[in-house]
């Protein structure tokens, strides 16, 4: 009720609220923003928040051309190449990353028979599905490297995989990257087993990041800070876990049934907004070797922790308490 009062008074003083548009996937990974929106954290900051469901490329170009303010994107070469070419965008906070724990939201899976074979004898000679250029290719090379193999040692299956995938319906007789919610659904039905989690292959794997464009970085950084406060408040509420409130908000947003939302593993999101810098550096190195990066750019150009640091400081210690 205190919040309602503040928001009411803010509306009274400042009827003109600033609109912020953010691209989000239709999944639990959108949690912090969706929760912050539903709980009024953004409204508290005088932000008229708008969620856009967009593919990763549209999100980046949307921010670059100014019709979108915040992008959600997997870590991939396109972000860095755009920055290198002078597009004013920066990564400002963690989207999701892997952590050790019993509940695994992403990893390599295979149908049971194949999974058992792989676990017993390794990947050599087995079928592996991937697609070039994305962050899953990075994970796949890590997976192969962990067994001392290269792509030449396995049978590559051309199939949609990773973040581009729309259809989890097809059960592919190959090792492939998989994530929620199909991970839970398919495991429940006994269609797949986990071969290796992302955390096994790349500890702290930085899967998703969020970033700002020129408007929030330069034109109105104050709005950027307000957004970040709202976002981090959302992260903290998200990190409270599968509470009634969170489950119902996410169920509403994703249109997935509440019990499925409860059953799936929720990816980790850091409460202070910090990304796994070492992990990203390693990915950049790999991208460079693979020829996906046009030029190397200094870290300070693509990573801007200031918004998150400021917001976390202003929000005080309660964030850390939860983590």
């Amino acid at each position, binding site marked *: 009720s205190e919040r309602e009062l503040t928001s009411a008074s803010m509306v009274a003083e400042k009827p003109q609220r600033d609109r912020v*548009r953010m*691209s989000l996937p*239709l999944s639990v990974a959108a949690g912090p923003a969706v929760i912050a929106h539903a709980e009024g954290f953004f409204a508290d900051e005088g932000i008229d928040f708008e969620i*856009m*469901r*967009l*593919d990763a*490329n*549209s999100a*980046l*170009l*949307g921010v*670059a*051309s100014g*019709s*979108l303010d915040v992008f959600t994107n997997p870590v991939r070469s396109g972000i860095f190449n755009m920055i290198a070419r002078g597009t004013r965008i920066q990564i400002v906070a963690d989207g999701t990353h892997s952590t050790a724990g019993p509940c695994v939201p992403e990893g390599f899976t295979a149908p049971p028979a194949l999974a058992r074979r792989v676990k017993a004898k390794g990947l050599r000679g087995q079928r592996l599905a991937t697609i070039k250029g994305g962050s899953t290719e990075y994970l796949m090379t890590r997976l192969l490297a962990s067994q001392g193999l290269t792509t030449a040692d396995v049978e590559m299956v051309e199939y949609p995989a990773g973040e581009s995938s*729309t*259809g*989890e*319906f097809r059960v592919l007789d190959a090792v492939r990257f998989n994530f929620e*919610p*199909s991970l839970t*659904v*398919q495991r429940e*039905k006994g269609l797949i087993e986990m071969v290796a989690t992302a955390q096994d292959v790349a500890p702290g794997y930085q899967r998703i990041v969020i970033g700002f464009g020129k408007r929030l970085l330069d034109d109105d950084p104050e709005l950027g800070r307000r957004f970040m406060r709202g976002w981090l408040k959302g992260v903290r509420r998200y990190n409270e876990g599968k509470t009634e409130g969170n489950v119902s908000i996410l169920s509403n*947003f*994703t*249109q*997935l049934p509440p019990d*499925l939302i409860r059953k799936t593993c929720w990816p980790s999101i850091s409460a202070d907004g910090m990304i796994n810098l070492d992990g990203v550096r390693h990915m950049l190195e790999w991208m460079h070797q693979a020829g996906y990066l046009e030029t190397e750019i200094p870290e300070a150009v693509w990573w801007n922790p200031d918004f998150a640091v400021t917001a976390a400081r202003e929000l005080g210690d309660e964030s850390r308490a939860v983590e």
Partner: protein
Amino acid sequence: MKREQLIDRAIAAGIALLLFGWWEVASRSGWISTLAFPPPSRIIANFGVLWDQGFLQKVGYTLGRFAAGAVIGAVPAILLGLLVGSRVRLNRIIDPFIAAMHPIPKIVLFPLFIVIFGVSDVSKLASIALTVFFPAFINSAAGARSISPLYFEVVRNYGGRRRQAFWYVLLPGSAPMILTGIRIAANVGLLVTIAIEFTMTSNGIGSIIWLAWQTMKTEDLYAGVVTLSVIGVLINSTIRYILRQVMPWQAAG
């Protein structure tokens, strides 16, 4: 004639029933994967569940998007197609541009639309409209070309001007091809609407199918598919109805 039509409808219905019956049996007895192909009875039963979750409203979103995009794309396509098709030289100049633009993948280039039109619904409508444009244009232009010059002579002979030739000859004369083009365009447009809803919206039939995939609820998937089929059949009946009205001498059933 009337009776023959009824018989033919009955035959079509019979074939459909047979197919669905076979599917039902095959699925129930496990010849085909129940997961991939749930029995039709279950799909039908599932409609009730979906209904309570606002299925109709979601279909409405799809139809709204589709109709807006289709109209924006088809109306200029028909007009431009008739114009270009009825003038040899204009056709020669414009046609290469159409040919060059047609195979550019609209979905794949969607992000560029975002740059032009912003992240609003306009970008989505533009992709649908652009997809609808090409088949409608190409068939309209071919329709205009197929009209015997005699008919244009007749209208000129009786003092008709260009604008009048449009209403008296160009439009009725190319109606069968225009409508055939609209039929193809409508279906292509519907497919693109679904593809856009797949990744770009959180409502509509496309997102139902996407969600169904995510959660392996194949009954939901087929609910979406069946709805699309019904829309397809309705589009087609409408077009055939119009065709019968406009072209009484060429009405096939």
